[in-house]
Structure formats: C-alpha cells, structure tokens
C-alpha cells in the first residue's frame, strides 16, 4: 500500500495536501491507496502514480474546477467529474484513462489551442509550458476550428520591470488571480469581463506596475503558459541547471531554487519544499538579486595609506599584509584592546564564526560585536532573562493555529512579506488581529482583513501599554493559573502580579500618556488573554527603544501569564530584520558571549573553546559597537574590521559615527560595494554575494538552511578564506579545508548545534535548533515541557520614559521603518529595478501637522533634531497620528540617521531609532 510520504514532494500533486487523522481507501486504475480524508481524486491519482491531466489546478491553490481537463470516471457514478474538485470517498474506484476520457480531454485542449498562438518553437516558455505538456499528454494533433474571433492580438503589458503579461497566451485559468488571493493575499488581480471577453486585470484594468500588485511573483509561478513570464527568461532562455539555496534578504529566510544557465542566474524560483516559505516569495527574493552582478561590485582588494588618497588595487597578499601590519602596529602602540571587529547578519554562520574567532583568538580581545546590536539585541537579552534562551519560540507554520495574533511594532507585509502573507491567510480564516503600532500599517485594514483592535500608541510608550494589558489580565482573572503554577517561578510571578496590579499601571492611568483610550487597551488585553491560542509577533518597533529589553520581557511576561507558550499557535516571536541575525547572534558575535550564548567569564565554557582553538581566551566582556565608536573619539580605540555592515549609514547619529571612523588609524571594510563606511576605510576586501557563498543561514524561527554557491566567488576567494588569511597574518592560522569543516567546529562547540552538519542539512533540507541528541530532528516549538531556564521567570517591568522628549523646539516624534521594495540601507535593492517603486525616502506627516507648517504633499522639507538636520520630501499621510512623523532609511542621500540620536536601550545599547524629537519646516531644496 502506498502512502503520501513515499512520493517526491517536489511533484505538483494538483491540489493541496490535507491534514487529517482519518484516512480513506480508494482504488485508482486498479491501484489501492490510502489517503487522508478530504484528499481530492486528483491528488490521490498523482500519489498512485496515475497523474490526471490538468491546467487550472496546482497544489499551491485550492481546487477551482474550471479547465475541465482533469475529468475522470468513477465506478457507480454518472458522468465524468473533475478530479480536482471531487474528494475521495471510502471504496471509491476511479479510472483516469479511457477512450471516452481521451476524447473529452482532447476536445477541451483543442478549444484552448484554437485560441492560442502556435509559436511554441519561438515561445519563451518552450519546454517549460504546462499547456504544451498537456497538449502532448492528451495527444492533440490537429485543431479543427478555423479562424474566428480570438485573442491572438491581445496586447502585452511589460510595465513591471521583472515580468511581462502577454494576454495573447492567456487561457484564463485564474491561477494567477487565485495565487494573488490565496497565497499572497493582495487581491490585486481579477478576471474582468464575461465569457469570451474574460481577461486577467490588475486592479481596475491598470498596468501591472500601476496596480496594487506587489510583484511577489506568485502569479508568474502559477501561470501554466508563457502569459506571465520572467523577462530574464524571455531575454536569455530557459535555465539548464538548478541549485537550491537560501535568500539573503529578511529574516524569513526563504528557500529558493536558483535556475541557471552556466554561471548566470536566469531566475530565482521559490522552493515549495522550503520550510520557511513553502513555495512563496516576495519582490526582493524573487527578483531583486541583480545587485550581485552590478557594475558597482568591487572584486579586487584595495588599500590606501590615508583615507584622502585614491584607492590602489593590490593583490590579496598585499592587502592582507597591509591590514595585519596596521592592526599589529596599533596594538603595539595602543594596546591589545585598541582594535576590534563587527560581524554581519548578511554573512553565513561560518563566515561570522571565523570573524569572531579571529577577533578573540588572533586579535586577543573580545571586542567583537554584530549588527544585531542595532536591531534585535534586546530580544536576546529579554528572552534569555525570562525563558532562558535568546530566540523566538515558534516555527512560522505555528501561526496556522493561532486564534488571536498580536503584532507589535512590526510591519510584516513590508518587512517580512512571505511570513506576512502566511499571517494574512490565518487572519482570513478568522483569527483575531491586534496591532499595536503608531502607524496604521497595511495589516490594520487590507482585503478581507480588519484588525479587531489597533492601538496607535505614541512612540516610546510600549512598556506602559503592555503593563496596562497585564494589569487587565491580573485584575480581570484572566491569568492561566494552572500553567503559571506548573511552569513558572512562583516568587517572580507573585512580584510581577503585584506590580502590574498597581493602579499606576492601569489602562486608565496610562491612557493619556499613550494616546489611547483605556477601553481599547482593555478590549485588546481580553482578546489576547481569552483566545485559545494567543501569539505575539514583534519587530524593531519593540526593540529599538530605550526600554527595548524591558518591552521584550513585558511581552514574555504576558505570554507566560496567559499560558501562551510551549505549543503550536502561541509564543513570542521576533521577526528578525536580516536573513542571518539569529545566526550571527548564535555564532558568538556579541562581546560578552561565545557561540551558543555562553558568557566569556564561564571558565568551563572558555576552556572548551581554548582547547579546540589552541589559544588562551579573555574572560572579560569586550566593547560593543557604541563603546568602540566612543573609544575611537576618546582616542583609545584605533582599528576596526567591518564585515558586511555599513555603519556610516545604518547606525544612529551619523556625525558621531563618521567622527569615530575618521579618528581610527585603520578601518578594514569587507563588502560587495564601496559603501558609506568605505569612505573612511584604509583597506577594502571584496566580499561575496549570497550566490557565491557556501554555508548556512539561520532564520527568525531558528531554522538552519543551506546557502549553496551557484557560481564561483567573483573575487576569487570565499569570505571565510579571507578572514582566515588575515588571522594567519596576525599570527593565528585557521586552517579549514572548506566551510563544512567550520560548521563541524561550530557543532562541536555549541550544544544547540551539536547535530548540525552540511551533510545532515543536505539530507533533511533544514533543521531548527536545538538540534542535538535530545532533539535530532530539531525543535520547531521551544519550551514545550519546560522552559530552557527551568521555570519561566517573570520580570517586573517598570515604565521609564525615554530621555528623548518633545519640546517646543522639537515638537514632533520621528519614527523610522522599512518599505517592501527596499532593504535596510539599500546597498542591494538600490542596485536593482526595485528603485522604480521607491526611488527616495519620504517623510510621512499627518495632514494637521503639515497644514500647521504650510507643507504640501511633495514639498521639500527640513527635518531637524538635537543630533542633526536633513531634507526630504513630504508625503501627507493618514496612516500616522498627528504629532508623529515617519520615514525610511534606504537612501544615503536622505541622511535619516543624521537626525537619530545616541539614545539607546538601557540593557543592550540598541539605538532608539523609533523615537527622535524633531521639528519639520518647509525647505527650498534637497540635501547637498
């Protein structure tokens, strides 16, 4: 007897799989098989090895039953039902082949082909077209219908930069429309007209580029013909080989199949077996990879004596020797701790690991930090204090069982789009949505979704609002007493309960401060606490505050108090900004801890590393990035190795950052491009794009995924090899035969990675840490039986207002964020056609604030804070409340971080990007 698991999951089985404990036995063409109850005949037939011809069906979408090609015969039934919309029933006997079915299917295909260009040999989808395949399968040889009305001259819409829509080839199967609805959740496409006039229409018969389409590529993926086709395929032809790898943009970490022609990428196709994305993608991962071959790529090492000099191209050996000599000179003159390094969340675990190892072992200091310092360092701190480990609790699929979803300070449809789509699928199924965000993000109201509660709180009041929600939980008897008694520390719970129950933490007490009504806070708290499964998802709107760590602990408290930890559908889930933020933190990039979040002062842990590394290691914490920058200005920190991070654009208070960089004697930048930081560098070491890397990324759900090279490194060297060369030149050789050997060392030293190796990942696809003898298959859900720290620890979370106050001089609060088409500082996306959607950063301002200042939509305005001044164009927006302004930071010319301040989280020094007091006034032109 066959079972589902025995079949290649990459085969499209026609309709989605069904999760059911009940099974039914059916016979398909004489083969008896068992399938889960609710399985379609089409899927069962495919499983039985008797696939039924199909056009409108794909397992990514619900059955639709429009093409009439999948007709079958069922014993004891009249007619020829569609296999896609007919469900298996016990004892059902199905015939997929008969002379009658052959005749019917051929007739259907004949009708399709009679209104389809017969240009297969020159069609861009030749060899990759389901219509062509099905014509072959049904044995169509002639078309009897002569010329008549047809769509053969229908126009092509080439407005989208990445794909075109050739209406002459459309068979109106609605797969694109359904993909936009069911998978992406944007509802940008529809079928306009009726009967013969039916046609696919973006929005209200607009061009794709002008429509609501978000260019996720789901429609292109779903199209069974050449109608929706990647322009790259049209230009260069169909690919000839493929390599599975992982996207290098956000923390969702989507799996992709890189489809290649030689060493040239033809297209990136989302991998439906990908654990994080299940076949979906966004505009960045699907299409915006052209930066990897952009003319701005620097592929040769360069040095310069002084930063005012021109760059000089040199050999690798010269560049490495120059950097090593400078670093060693600095250490001789200014001491061991006068240099340090920064690791990058855009690099693989293996690349990050060797950089932090070089700093600790070759430099002899713990002065290593990572770009997570400026995004999710409070997550690591807060979740470790409460749960015992510095990571989110769930896998992404867990949201499919959430009944109330609370999104705090996150905009997943823009910043984590593929997970955002999954979240929207659950919301359309009826889960309640609570959005806590100053802005009315897209989630608050989108097609078929309306947030049950939107709390547009004033930036900087997160902790006060969460405490007020907790107040409601403990004073309205909404605590999950049994969970708390069994799983949590009783003493800390008692302290916390008494604290949040104080009148000063009631919704009524903090409502005015937060700019909310007390009732809205109470209703939101009740919705979350009374849901069967309540899940929290959060982003940088939580962490990038002076109380970022406190807020993370406040969310953890609330989840524990309501019993929303340790099973599917619940949890506290950080939406990580970059693809490998989790991994970079896991790999020991923070100055106080080794890989696996173990403090450098722990003698036994330090000895393990010292034994394997063959060097004595420091027991004192090193400097964080802001400490290094302050140290540079003070004169005692003189040299910095920066791996793949543009601190001169991404870090707050640009004047302070650049002053620090200018004060250093040696700055080494390892990157793809001459970024803003490289303006202050003495050595440039060319890096590798994700298409050239061999390693692993760890996404926001702790999923370790392989990153496989699809082409050789353009610079001739892998990044980890360059780091090893520099380490050797500094007197500490690191000899690895390949990056797999680096992972083997990581596994040997990191208990949560003990079971991880490249060969294991190649076998299983991906795995979520902890992966070790206790959990050989990984751990999708954390804290199921007990918290990592034992009992859950409640932490009292007093609200402390930020020092960044609005005044008469700076009366508005600036908050920042990302947009869908661009990514962080834009180094990658600005070098793609994504520029067409967002060519500049704009300042969103509420109409009343704009009117008060005489500002009209599109006007140039000056934004001034206590840290600096910049100029942007204004956009009048109803998405933000009066008193708040908002912008993105994707373009260096905008200088957004010129105006953000040095204020930071009390525990981790994560910058307070989300609260800057500013004034906005009309200006005559843009920044010089």
């Amino acid at each position, binding site marked *: 007897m066959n079972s589902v698991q025995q079949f290649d999951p990459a085969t499209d089985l026609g309709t989605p799989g069904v999760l059911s404990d009940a099974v039914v036995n059916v016979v398909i063409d004489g083969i008896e098989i068992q399938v889960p109850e609710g399985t379609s005949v089409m899927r069962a037939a495919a499983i039985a090895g008797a696939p039924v011809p199909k056009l409108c069906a794909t397992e990514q979408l619900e059955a639709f039953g429009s093409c009439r090609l999948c007709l079958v015969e069922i014993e004891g039934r009249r007619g020829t039902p569609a296999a896609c919309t007919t469900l298996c029933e016990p004892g059902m006997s199905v015939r997929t082949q008969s002379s009658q079915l052959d005749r019917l299917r051929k007739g259907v295909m004949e009708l399709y082909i009679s209104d389809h260009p017969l240009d297969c040999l020159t069609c861009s989808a030749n060899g990759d077209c389901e219509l062509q395949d099905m014509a072959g399968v049904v044995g169509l040889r002639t078309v009897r219908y002569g010329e008549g009305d047809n769509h053969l001259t229908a126009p092509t819409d080439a407005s989208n930069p990445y794909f075109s829509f050739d209406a002459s080839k459309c068979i109106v199967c609605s797969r694109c429309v359904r993909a936009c609805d069911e998978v992406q959740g944007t509802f940008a496409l529809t079928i306009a007209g009726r009967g013969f006039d039916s046609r696919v229409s973006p929005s209200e018969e607009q061009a794709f580029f002008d429509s609501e389409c978000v260019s996720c590529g789901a429609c292109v993926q779903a199209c069974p013909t050449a109608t929706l086709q990647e322009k790259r395929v049209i230009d260069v032809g169909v690919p000839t080989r493929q390599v599975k790898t992982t996207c290098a943009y956000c923390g969702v970490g989507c799996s992709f199949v890189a489809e290649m022609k030689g060493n040239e990428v033809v297209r990136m196709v989302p991998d439906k077996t990908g654990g994080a994305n299940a076949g979906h993608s966004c505009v960045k991962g699907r299409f915006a990879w052209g930066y990897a071959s952009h003319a701005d790529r620097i592929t040769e090492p360069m040095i310069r004596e002084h930063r005012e000099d021109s760059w000089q191209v040199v050999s690798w050996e010269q560049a490495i020797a120059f950097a090593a000599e400078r670093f060693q000179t600095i250490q001789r003159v200014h001491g061991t701790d006068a240099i340090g390094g920064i690791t990058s969340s855009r690099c693989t675990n293996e690349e990050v690991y060797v950089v932090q190892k070089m700093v600790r072992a070759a430099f002899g200091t713990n002065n290593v930090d990572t770009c997570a310092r400026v995004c999710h360092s409070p997550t690591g701190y807060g979740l470790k204090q409460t749960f015992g480990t510095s990571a989110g609790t769930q896998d992404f699929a867990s949201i499919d069982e959430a009944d109330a979803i609370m999104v705090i300070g996150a905009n997943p449809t823009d910043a984590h789009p593929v997970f955002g789509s999954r979240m929207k699928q659950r919301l359309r199924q009826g889960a309640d949505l609570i959005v806590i965000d100053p802005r009315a993000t897209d989630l608050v109201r989108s097609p078929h979704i309306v947030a049950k509660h939107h709390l547009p709180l004033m930036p900087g009041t997160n902790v006060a609002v969460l405490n007020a929600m907790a107040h409601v939980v403990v004073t309205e008897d909404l605590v999950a007493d049994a969970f708390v008694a069994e799983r949590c520390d009783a003493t800390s719970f008692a302290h916390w309960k008494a604290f949040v129950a104080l009148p000063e933490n009631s919704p009524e007490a903090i409502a005015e401060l937060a700019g909310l009504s007390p009732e809205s806070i109470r209703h939101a708290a009740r919705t979350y606490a009374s849901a069967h499964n309540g899940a929290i998802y959060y982003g940088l709107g939580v962490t990038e505050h002076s109380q970022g760590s406190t807020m993370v602990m406040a969310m953890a408290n609330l989840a524990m108090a309501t019993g929303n930890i340790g099973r599917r559908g619940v949890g506290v889930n950080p939406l990580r900004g970059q693809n490998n933020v989790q991994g970079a933190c896991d790999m020991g990039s923070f100055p106080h801890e080794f890989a696996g979040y173990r403090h450098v*002062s722990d003698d036994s842990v330090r000895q393990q590393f010292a034994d394997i590394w063959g060097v004595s290691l420091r027991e004192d914490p090193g400097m964080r990035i802001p400490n290094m920058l*302050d140290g540079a200005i003070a004169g005692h920190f003189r040299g910095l190795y920066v791996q793949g991070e543009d601190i001169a654009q991404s870090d707050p208070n640009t004047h302070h950052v650049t002053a620090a960089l200018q004060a250093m004697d040696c700055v080494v930048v390892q990157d793809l491009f001459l970024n803003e930081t490289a303006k202050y560098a003495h050595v440039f070491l060319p890096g590798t794009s994700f298409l050239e890397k061999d390693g692993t990324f760890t996404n926001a759900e702790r999923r370790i995924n392989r990153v496989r090279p699809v082409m050789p490194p353009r610079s001739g060297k892998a990044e980890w090899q360059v780091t090893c060369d520099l380490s050797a030149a500094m007197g500490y050789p690191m000899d690895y035969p390949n990056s797999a050997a680096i992972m083997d060392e990581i596994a040997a030293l990191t208990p949560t990675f003990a079971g991880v190796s490249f060969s294991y990942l190649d076998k299983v696809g991906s795995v979520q840490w902890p992966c070790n003898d206790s959990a050989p298959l990984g751990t999708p859900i954390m804290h199921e039986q007990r918290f990592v720290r034992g009992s859950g620890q409640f932490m009292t979370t*007093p609200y402390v207002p930020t020092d960044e106050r609005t005044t008469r001089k700076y009366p508005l609060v600036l908050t920042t964020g990302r947009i869908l088409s661009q990514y962080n500082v834009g180094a990658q996306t600005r070098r793609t056609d994504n520029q067409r959607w967002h060519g500049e950063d704009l300042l969103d301002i509420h109409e009343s604030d704009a009117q008060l200042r005489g500002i009209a939509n599109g006007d140039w305005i000056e934004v001034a804070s206590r840290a600096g001044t910049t100029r942007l164009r204004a956009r009048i927006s109803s998405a933000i409340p009066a008193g708040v302004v908002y912008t993105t930071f994707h373009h260096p010319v905008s200088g957004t971080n010129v105006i953000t301040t040095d204020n930071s989280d*009390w525990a981790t020094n994560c910058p307070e990007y989300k609260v800057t007091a500013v004034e906005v006034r009309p200006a005559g032109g843009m920044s010089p």
Partner: protein
Amino acid sequence: MTAATVMTSHRLVAMANQIANNVPSREGVAEQVAHHMQQFWTPPMRRELQLLAQSEPELFDAAVLDAVALAPV
C-alpha cells in the same frame, strides 16, 4: 582630558544611571547594576566609571555609586 574624552566619559555615567533607572526590581538596585556592568562592560569602562565616581559623584545616581563600590574591575 580632552573634550571628546569628557563627552565619552559622561556617556558612561549616563549609561550607568540609565541602567539604575531600568533594572527590573526596585530592590537591590545597586547589586543589579553591578551585576549588569560585570556582565556587559569592559574592565576599562568600569575603571573609568570608578574614577568618575570619585571625581564627579554629583553626576551619579546614588545606586550607581553603590554599584561602583560593589563591582570589582
């Protein structure tokens, strides 16, 4: 001492005071601050804070002054 050094030194004081204001419990604040500095601050930063505590105690939250006395460098 240069202006830059003064500025960064005062940032250390501000950071320490901020920690004192934010540690979770209002009981044993000095101990919590001392523990935090042990965990996350470099010895030179702690030494510098000690010197500042002696020379400019008026800049300090009282709990930080107590913490400095508790935190070995």
